[in-house]
């Protein structure tokens, strides 16, 4: 898949994943990797940025195995941002596919 496509949509996928339930880093990476094949390293910077922009809150929770894990929780601002991104994505995706279908019709 084109890395440029991935980069744009990765933010939306991460936001959507955390919206369903709070997740810790590695869990999130695995979840995102199921949707799109992405460089695992790049998800952490994204999480960091979204946290810095207050779309995420973080808290530590003890785990049965190993050290406490940092969980990410979507804030109200994060939900609004996710909704706007999802709407943008829908519109964008519709336009592009419509454009592509029109071209098919001509041919």
């Amino acid at each position, binding site marked *: 898949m084109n890395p440029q496509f991935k980069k744009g949509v990765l933010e939306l996928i991460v936001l959507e994943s955390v919206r369903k339930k709070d997740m810790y*880093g590695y869990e999130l990476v695995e979840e995102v990797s199921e949707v799109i094949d992405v460089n695992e390293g790049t998800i952490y910077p994204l999480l960091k940025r979204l946290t810095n922009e207050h779309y995420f809150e973080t808290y530590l929770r003890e785990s049965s195995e190993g050290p406490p894990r940092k969980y990410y929780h979507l804030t109200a601002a994060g939900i609004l941002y996710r909704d706007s991104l999802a709407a943008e994505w829908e519109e964008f995706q519709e336009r592009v596919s419509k454009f592509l279908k029109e071209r098919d019709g001509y041919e």
Partner: protein
Amino acid sequence: MNKEKFLQELRGYLQVLEDQEQEDILEEYSQHIDMKLQKGLSEEEAIRDFGSMKELAAEILEAYHVKPGFRQRNMTVPFSLTKKERESGKFFRSVADFWKGKFAAAVHGGKNAIQWLGRKCRNFADWAARLFRRKNDYGQTAEAGRMQERISVGTDIDSMSQLPERYGRNDNGINQNIKQEISNKEMNQESNKGMMVSGMGKLLRGMGRGIGMLWRGFLGLCVWGLRTAWNLGWLMLSVFCACLAMIALAGFGTLAVLLFQGYPLAGMLIISLGAILCFGALACGAFSMRIRKNGTISQSEGEVQYE
């Protein structure tokens, strides 16, 4: 690359961030790698999945709106000068400027003094040459005058002694004869006197010119000798210093090799480096002290040739 090394290297890229943030991010990656290990992957494989370290670091820094290229500039900060050091540098620079100014003034003064000395010498030479010539001229005129006097006196005596005989012999022709003879004699004597005077003058003038030229040549030789001696002295000093610098360089190389072999010679190495720089600077300084021919001396030579 193992986990330890990966985290260390990544930390190096994230120096610009606060320590807390660095720890935070590194903890995430550390946990990620641990999880991968639990799943049965090796550290190598887990780290390989992160891709390029540089891109990763750039993406992390981008999350903080930090320019990724900042790292290079940031890394130079420990080597850049603090305010205090900069001020002390300023102080040293001002001291250096002061001495440079003094030195330049001294050099300028020395140059002026030499120029002045050269000018005086030339003036003296001119004066001396003129003195000789004037004396000769005076001598010529005085001698000529004396000669003329003697000649005229001689004629008078001659004519006076001849006068009675002629007077007695022939009254009519007397005056004419006397006049003719006198004029003839006078003419002869005049021409002789003229030739003699001009010959003497020529001789004396030639002598004067010769003396002047000799004097000038002597002076030029003196100046040339002085300049050559000066240049030679500085050149020798320069060569000497250059040799010492070369020796220091050889010592530096030897010490460097020995240092790498484990001998405790770091101090000596620095000393030899200092010696190289010191002697190199001295050699350059001494070399630049030479006086070139187109300096003050050739100028004065040009002026002397006004005749």
